[in-house]
């Protein structure tokens, strides 16, 4: 079976659902890793990217209650927070004074019960006004859908307004796992997989590039993972609007469903299979916050070509028991990538190379 898949990959033939399942079921970690690495090198050479960025979570108050989430709170609950625009700007001012300068801000948060749509526009406009050259990556499909709901506007109107205010790019969160049964168990209040796809398709049509994610390692089966990947591939065929795919390893602490961390071996295999199945995605990201910097680095030899960035302050995964630090320095990231035998590249939000560390 693997030999046939290998032949397909080397000849550039698209893998089928059965192939993807066979890869997940196979114990031949090394053959899968090698094959994924081959594809990654064909697409991105020996380059592995990182970005100097900062995360900002405007609020953890959320009307949804996803069972895998340790971040969300109700209004008034202990630990609930909501940042004012001034506080957001202050965090950004600090980050842009520091060296190296951040080139991207990543803004995602809960679905706040009281904030009107205008508040989100004000947030983006204020960031844009104060940081004209900073790339603004903000709001998952779930938040976009929520803004449509509270404002009565259509998704496309929401996206156009946000873009006009300064939004450049959207993260890929909220995809979780598309399969209906499991999704209903994990996050019954969250938008469906169909709706997530619909929002992303609208974003791509509006000229907003996005990422895509998959939350794995909780209760899903490999069939669910494969279905998820194939739906992303299918949308990417239609729009070409996805930049990176980011498999997100489930973290069990302080969540309602509990359970265990995914294994490091599963993490590597999931990266590799994603690289092989998502033949139309330019990048596969081994997000170090979720995998840990050690597995993330190793993943660069299993098909990943990006580790995300400096981040500075990470809350969502840390509240669910992330064992990583909250941020890394540029120096750390360069070292990590170089020691994996790859050429570190600092990129901007759009994967333009800002600096290649090829010495």
């Amino acid at each position, binding site marked *: 079976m693997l030999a046939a898949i290998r032949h397909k990959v080397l000849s550039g033939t698209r893998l089928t659902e059965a192939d993807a399942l066979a890869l997940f079921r196979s*114990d031949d*970690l090394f053959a899968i890793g090698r094959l994924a690495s081959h594809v990654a090198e064909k697409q991105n050479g020996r380059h592995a990217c990182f970005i100097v960025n900062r995360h900002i979570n405007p609020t953890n108050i959320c009307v949804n209650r996803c069972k895998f989430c340790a971040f969300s709170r109700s209004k008034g609950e202990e630990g609930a927070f909501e940042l004012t625009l001034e506080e957001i700007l202050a965090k950004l001012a600090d980050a842009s004074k520091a060296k190296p300068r951040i080139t991207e801000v990543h803004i995602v948060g809960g679905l706040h019960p009281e904030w009107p749509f205008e508040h989100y526009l004000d947030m983006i406009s204020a960031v844009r006004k104060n940081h004209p050259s900073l790339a603004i990556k903000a709001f998952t499909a779930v938040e976009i859908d929520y803004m449509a709901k509270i404002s009565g506007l259509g998704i496309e109107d929401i996206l156009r307004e946000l873009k006009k205010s300064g939004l450049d790019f959207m993260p890929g969160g909220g995809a979780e796992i598309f399969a209906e049964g499991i999704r209903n168990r994990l996050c019954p209040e969250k938008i469906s997989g169909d709706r997530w796809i619909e929002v992303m398709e609208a974003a791509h049509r509006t000229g907003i590039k996005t990422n895509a994610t998959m939350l794995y390692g909780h209760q899903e089966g490999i069939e669910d993972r494969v279905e998820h990947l194939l739906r992303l591939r299918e949308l990417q065929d239609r729009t070409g609007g996805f930049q990176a795919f980011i498999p997100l390893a489930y973290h069990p602490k302080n969540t309602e469903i509990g359970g265990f961390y995914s294994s490091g*071996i599963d993490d590597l295999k999931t990266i590799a299979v994603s690289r092989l199945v998502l033949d139309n995605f330019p990048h596969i990201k081994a997000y170090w916050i979720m*995998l840990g910097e*050690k*597995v993330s680095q*190793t993943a660069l030899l299993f098909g990943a070509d990006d580790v995300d960035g400096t981040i500075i302050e990470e809350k969502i995964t840390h509240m669910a028991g992330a*064992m990583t630090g909250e941020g890394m320095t540029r120096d750390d990231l360069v070292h990590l990538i170089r020691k994996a035998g790859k050429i570190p590249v600092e990129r901007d939000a759009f994967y333009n190379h800002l600096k290649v560390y090829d010495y």
Partner: protein
Amino acid sequence: MNRKELKDRTMKRIDNKTALDLLKTADLLDLGEQADNIRKDLHPEGRVTFVVDRNINYTNVCINKCTFCAFYREAGHPEAYVLSDDEVFGKIDETLALGGTQILIQGGLHPELGLDYYTGLLKAIKERYTINVHGFSPPEISYLARKHDLTVRETLLVLRHAGLDSIPGGGAEILSDRVREILSPKKIKSSEWLKVMEEAHRIGMRTTATMMFGSVETPEDIIAHLDALRSLQDRTGGFTAFIPWSFQPGNTELNRQAAAKKRNAKIHPATAVDYLKVLALSRIYLDNIRNVQASWVTQGLKLAQVALRFGANDFGSTMIEENVVRAAGVSYTVSKEDIVEAIKGAGFTAAQRDTYYRIIHFF
């Protein structure tokens, strides 16, 4: 070296030149796959073992002051301590309550503790408990021998008579005197470490062997270390396992020295890729040591799981208490259940073992 060539050249015992070549140039996945194959040959049952034990660090007072260590204190320092017998017993009670079979007793080289302290402690433990005492690494044994003008063999016999069962492989660091001169100028030299182990093996005691890499050593030093272990094992067969781990720079003199030399410079800890490479090479090179441990204490559970496919077949200890690595700023809190789940999650059956790698209990 391509994959086929790597496979051919590692079919039988590899020489140092090949080992160096592999460490410097081999593709990590090729090296890992070969180590994985060797592990499967040695342990075809698809089982990963661990021991339930506790580290008991009887004192942190140490005259050696190694530059890579964040644990030691000088005598008289407010944080300096020596555990009382009752404190040690309390820790053993807890260990047994958790299904433990072994205690790992190690400590600093305390200038005021003589052989009486050690034999007294061992006898007191053995009178009260049935538990394997895995204790006193070669620097401690050698220090006691010198202090009392005994031979290493005599010291070992006295300790064994008092109740010492087996000896941990700590203090090996890198068995290269050039490196030891930088890391631990006062610690016993390579030849003395090897001598203590050889004497222990000769009187029938089993020991482990360790290697701490990722500080200031060269690839050549790593090979010299492995060579020394393999040669000794050829003579005695006394090593039960090899445990490579990586230097943790937090709070250490070595890191402070680096920072002082160059502003803001710091020592980067060995990365995951470095660790997996050294681990895989060790599995390939040490053809006469049956078990290789993954170090979740220094690598975290996820990479330790990956290590099970890069040559390791044992998950070490549950470490009910670990103080030395934690002093260097690295702390992964892990329960026995976490270890069992991690092993299963990596695709193996989990089994609790004793000090001698005999299975006690399957999960």
